[in-house]
């Protein structure tokens, strides 16, 4: 690890390798396989799972109700108006997509950087990505006034001879998000294929054998297969990395390409990407902390993981802080009245409170405390921080979307924004949907990649001596 703020303690060094240990000692191929596969293959679903799933499902019905009403009445059930024509839908969209980014980052970028500690958390981080993209992808579709015509955003030959308009950032979104969703699902699925093989071979029930056998595509662990598999994984990781950077860049273009003060700024792409990772890691923590407790996975998802994620958040948090600082600086330095008024209004206008919520949650609390290793390894504190940052990042989008729109160029058209119950129901509903989907994943799919964990075990070490001897 490159972080040097504190040296690892002795017991954290793996005696076998002399490296920083990311998995608790005493695990074998068999034991990790057993532990992970059992969660899925056990016929006994824990009661707690049912309880949580019930809650998630119930909350998700808010979404169903809200969407039904939305389709019946139109987007006017939300608080959007003139001039604030985008509201919760776009805020939630950006927020969810941002959350998804951490999953891709963990699985792709950390893979490229050979950060093996990622192995314990990458599978459910990827799952998180996909479910976050599902929730996110819902919003662009439902926020349009005539969702039944949403397919007009796709380039397909039609009797009207008309095509989408490729200069629009919304169209870029279509391609970015659909690519992102596709690649994420493919990456996730390909990553699970060998584990499906394990599940097939460890399942007792005929049905499970059959189903896992089908989705494992007949994986048998051939060395040739593994080589191609590894190449493909690396390539996918190599592709997913620019993809994940591009997706939030493209989403930031929704704003940056517009002429609106508060939107029209070049700092947005890096600041959005960093913010996305920031919130994404917070969400991974929000999920990982209860999960490892519930399924007793402390041996696989160790304090070390939590600590590392804290460090990543600290780093991305500072990039985000730089972004905020730059906005303020440019408002002054540009000498543009539009910019300086926007900044004044954002801070001290009628909706200035939202800016200060954002500063508190994203900067004031996390960036002062995450320096402390003690706090970084304090599980309750990290859980708290994860919630704070998620809140802060939601408000960041709120500030960008709403406080830029409600007072723009012509003072005659200034307005305000006050969310309706349908706004809240839709938002909370997606949280429920996300929870429910995630619980289904935890129940039916191996949430930790077994093949990758095996690679990290001491037994996976090839003794060079023997090989050399044999090579004679």
């Amino acid at each position, binding site marked *: 690890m490159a972080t040097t703020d504190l040296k690892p303690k002795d017991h954290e060094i793996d005696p076998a390798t002399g490296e920083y240990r990311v998995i608790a000692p005493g695990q074998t191929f068999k034991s990790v396989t057993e532990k992970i596969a059992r969660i899925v293959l056990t016929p006994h679903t824990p009661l707690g799972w049912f309880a949580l799933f019930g809650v998630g499902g119930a909350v998700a019905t808010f979404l169903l109700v809200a969407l039904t009403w939305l389709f019946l*009445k*139109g*987007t*006017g*059930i939300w*608080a*959007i*108006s*003139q*001039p*604030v*024509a*985008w509201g919760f839908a776009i805020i939630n969209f950006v927020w969810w997509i941002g959350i998804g980014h951490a999953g891709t980052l963990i699985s792709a970028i950390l893979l490229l950087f050979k950060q093996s500690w990622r192995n314990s958390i990458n599978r459910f981080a990827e799952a998180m990505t996909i479910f976050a993209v599902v929730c996110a992808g819902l919003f662009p579709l439902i*926020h*349009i*006034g*005539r*969702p*039944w*015509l*949403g397919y*007009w*955003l796709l380039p397909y030959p*039609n*009797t*009207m001879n*008309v*095509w*989408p*308009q490729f*200069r*629009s*950032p*919304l*169209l870029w979104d*279509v391609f970015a998000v659909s690519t992102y969703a596709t690649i994420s699902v493919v990456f996730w699925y390909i990553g699970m294929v060998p584990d499906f093989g394990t599940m097939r071979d460890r399942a007792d029930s005929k049905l499970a054998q059959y189903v896992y056998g089908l989705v494992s595509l007949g994986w048998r662990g051939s060395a040739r297969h593994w080589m191609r598999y590894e190449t493909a994984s690396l390539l996918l990781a190599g592709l997913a990395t620019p993809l994940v950077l591009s997706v939030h860049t493209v989403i930031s273009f*929704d704003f940056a*390409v*517009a*002429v*609106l003060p508060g939107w029209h700024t070049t700092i947005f792409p890096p600041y959005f990407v960093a913010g996305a990772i920031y919130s994404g890691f917070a969400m991974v923590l929000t999920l990982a902390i209860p999960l490892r407790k519930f399924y007793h996975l402390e041996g696989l998802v160790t304090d070390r993981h939590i600590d590392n994620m804290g460090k990543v958040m600290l780093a991305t948090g500072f990039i985000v802080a730089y972004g905020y600082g730059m906005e303020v600086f440019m408002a002054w330095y540009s000498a543009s*009245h539009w910019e*300086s*008024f926007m900044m*004044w209004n954002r801070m*001290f206008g*009628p909706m200035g409170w939202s800016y200060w919520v954002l500063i508190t949650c994203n900067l004031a609390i996390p960036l002062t405390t995450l320096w402390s290793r003690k706090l970084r390894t304090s599980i309750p504190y990290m859980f708290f921080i994860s919630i704070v940052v998620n809140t802060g990042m939601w408000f960041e989008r709120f500030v960008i979307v709403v406080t830029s*729109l409600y007072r*723009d*160029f*012509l*003072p*005659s*058209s*200034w*307005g305000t924004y*006050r969310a309706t119950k349908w706004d809240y129901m839709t938002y909370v509903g997606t949280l429920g949907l996300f929870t429910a989907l995630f619980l289904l994943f935890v129940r039916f799919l191996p949430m930790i990649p077994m093949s990758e964990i095996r690679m990290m075990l001491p037994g996976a070490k090839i003794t060079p001596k023997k090989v050399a001897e044999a090579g004679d």
Partner: protein
Amino acid sequence: MSGHMNGSKQAAGNAVDYEKSKAAAPETAMTLEAVRAELKSAKGKRYWRSVDELAGSPEFEAAVEKEFPGSAQEWVDPVSRRGFMKLMGASMALAGLAGCTKQPDEPIYAYVKQPEDLILGKPMYFATAMPSATGALPLLVKTDQFRPIKIDGNPEHPYNLGSSDVFAQGALLDLYDPDRSQHATYRGENREWAEFAQELRKKAAESKDGTGIYFLSSTITSPTLARQWKAVQAAYPKATLVQYDPAIAGTSLEKGLSVQYALADADVIVSLDADFLSGAAYPGFHKLVREYADRRKNPEKLNRLYSIDSTPTTTGLKAEHRLGLRASEIPAFAAELAKAVGVAGVESQSYNWTEEQKKFLAAVAKDLKAHAGKSVVISGLHQDASVEALAAAINSALGNVGKTALVSAEPVNPLPGDQAAGFKALVADLNAGKVDWLVILNANPIYSAPADLDFASAFNKAKIVAHLGSHYDETGHEAHWHIPAAHFLESWSDARAYDGTISIVQPMIDPLYGGKSAHHVFQALLNEPGLSPYDAVRETWKPVIKGDFETGWRKALHQGWIDETAVGKGSASGADAQKLTSKVPAPSSKDAIEIIFRPDPSIYDGRWSNVGWLQELPKPVTNLSWDNAALVSGATLTKLGLEEDDIVELTVQGRKVNAPVIVVPGQPDNSVTVYLGYGRSFAGRVGSGAGFNAYLIRTTGAPFYAIGSLKKLDGKWGVAITKSHYQDHRSKLFGGQGSGNNSLEADEAISERGIIRYATLDEFKANPGFANEGPGHEKTDKDNTLFPNWDYKDNAWGMSIDMNSCTGCNACIVGCYAENNIAVVGKQQVRIGRNLQWLRIDTYFEGDLAAPRAHFQPMACQHCENAPCEQVCPVGATVHTPEGLNTMVYNRCVGTRYCSNNCPYKVRRYNFLLYSDFETESLKLMRNPDVSVRSRGVMEKCSYCVQRISAAKIEADKENRPVRDGEIQTACQQACPASAITFGNINDKGSRVARLQADERSYQVLADLNTRPRTKYVAAVLNPNSELQEAPVEHSPAKG
């Protein structure tokens, strides 16, 4: 104008749905009472939708059927053709069944006999006039298959030259109002007109001399009706006619118009509480605005307007110098002014004028004297009679009479009289039991009678009350007989315009609901009871029209007026001096709170209550829509411990009414203005329940202002104001401007943002290019571009708006409503900023909000050449045409609203819900067949009236010529009485718009964004009196 009309010209066919509607036998019954109760509970604040959900139900239809058998759909034109089909199908189409979906089968109903002069698809235009007590407005009505679809001023009429006003524009929706009463009733049961006529005749015959027969009418404006009344009087000498119009009684109008102003030659105009620039509530509005605005267009010819007024109106806020006085101070001030300009015999009151007021008085008097013969003093309609007399005396003393103030010999209203006295006498007779029959003609006294007369109980003492009215309104509900009144577009009549010209009011359509007019009522008492109003009108004018009558009659119908009927120039009349004997009332105590009553600028005295366009229209100055309110100054609000939107109890002489309170910049302290016309209980689904009824505290003694009090009550009213006026509390560090009592919006708009640019005459002379100087205000440099510019070779449409001329009267907005099928959204939607008006008038209050100057800026789509909206639409639903229009393709729009976000002018309007009414049949008849009706989820905006452009281009292409300058007028341009809006081809260097855009005062709003708008504004140049200018006004945009 083409064609002529005769009495019956309804399209072929007959009532088709009679049998069908009869056949519907509902399971569950519902009475109209239940419906009304339900509507009442909705308090009218939920607009069409709730009602329509109800109205669409079979129960409702059954209820209508039960109460009005067979008549509910009588007017449904059975020969609905393509134009309607388009609208009906549009709901389906815009609901998204475009692309690859099947269309349903559509029927075509062929004529049986097609009217000869009808070309389907081509509109026809007919001249008529809208009668009004303030002078009829000559109209040219566009009809499609003999359905009126757009009302505009008659462009050839010398009075208005084609301009109109909010009422005239709104009259179209009034005609098609689905809530109009649809059948004659007697004690709630359906009857026929003939039965009523017979009853009335019988009663008259029984009375022999007309004893006990009373008529209560709104102001009679028709010479024919007056003639008919005189005939009735001759036959029944004891029959009594009382005229009463709540907004007319007590004004000079009830005695007929006496003074006409000619502002073309007036260098100095002084308004004594006269609001002659904001709407047709002031007689001669169209002409006065035109003449005023003509002088504003050329800085060489600027006039100077002083306004002394009791409530801020567009007149006051347009004035170079405005003095806000409480209403009761104005007569005394007028007397001081008269004295100062040298009117003999004026007694001055001992009143403690402030230094500022004295200075103002001295400056105005000096200016008036310096411009003797080239100045004019205009008196307010809703002031003490002494003000009119003093104004006349001043004009006389200055030698203005015959030049700028013309005194006409004959009254415009044919039956002048003291309305309030007549009404009082009627109430006395009612109470004395003398009234057997009371026939109410187009009036609604139950709602609008002065509160002190207790008309409602007197009313019940009449044996039989009949009500002729367009709606089953408050009076209709109480009357025994109710007769649906014909709209002025449905019946023959006549009227005089402000300039005295006689216009024939010719119907455009057969009465939709079999309505009758007052002509029918009077005629029913005469020898030929069946004589139609058409014949009656012809009879009136037979002696007047010179030469061959038929030729002259045709010409009168065709051109819209009868030649040589305008009033003469008039002369200085000695009678004016005598009026001075009327005592000038003393101002009320400075601490007393005055309550001022004014007719509403949008719905007048309540007669336009049910016109959604007018209800939703943000009122000039206040930008209040859907309500009236107690308008107070900021200081008074603070003094009374109130906040805006608080509910207050207004009390006048023990009578109370609850009202919301809002601040109006420039309102005199201790003065509360309330608009009449609201608080209707039976106006219809639109008007019922909106606002509060100010008539409840208005008395005969004090019809225009009274002493009263305000008390705070609990709760908020929830007013819908379309624009805010936040106070600018920023420190200088953050670019703050003023004293802390300024409007943030105006400070922003006028300073760095350069949205409003203006100069004084002196500044303009020193620096004629002021409008395009200063950082961010420079003209767009077209060559400074990253990518090549598009060429607009052929036509390039553009618009120019003269900021010096626009008075903010709103006529353009209502014209746009009518032309472009814009939906009404309802109060709650307006509250959250979802009004659909394509055009709005931005109002900025500059300077101290206690005494601001206002700027009115019509703002619609600017048709930017580098349109930010187009670039961000993912489906290409908004694109540029080769002629530079920013086109909105509704049927392609999926509703991302990104274009609206990216529009710096925020002129795009979005159908957040299903606002357009696709169900109500009568509204379908009204709509412009050349414009799509937008459904839910679709963005819309100003199109520069592209349907008119297309029509003109087709005509020009057929004739193989370019489109001529002036051939295309946008709806707003057409309506504008100030001619502030000019539209045309900017590539044609000779066109009016190109010349205006080339003017050095022309500027583009937000030019620094390089959006390159096609709409340009001509910066205002003001002509202040240097004596009243404290310090050089620091507003020049060049300052930066």
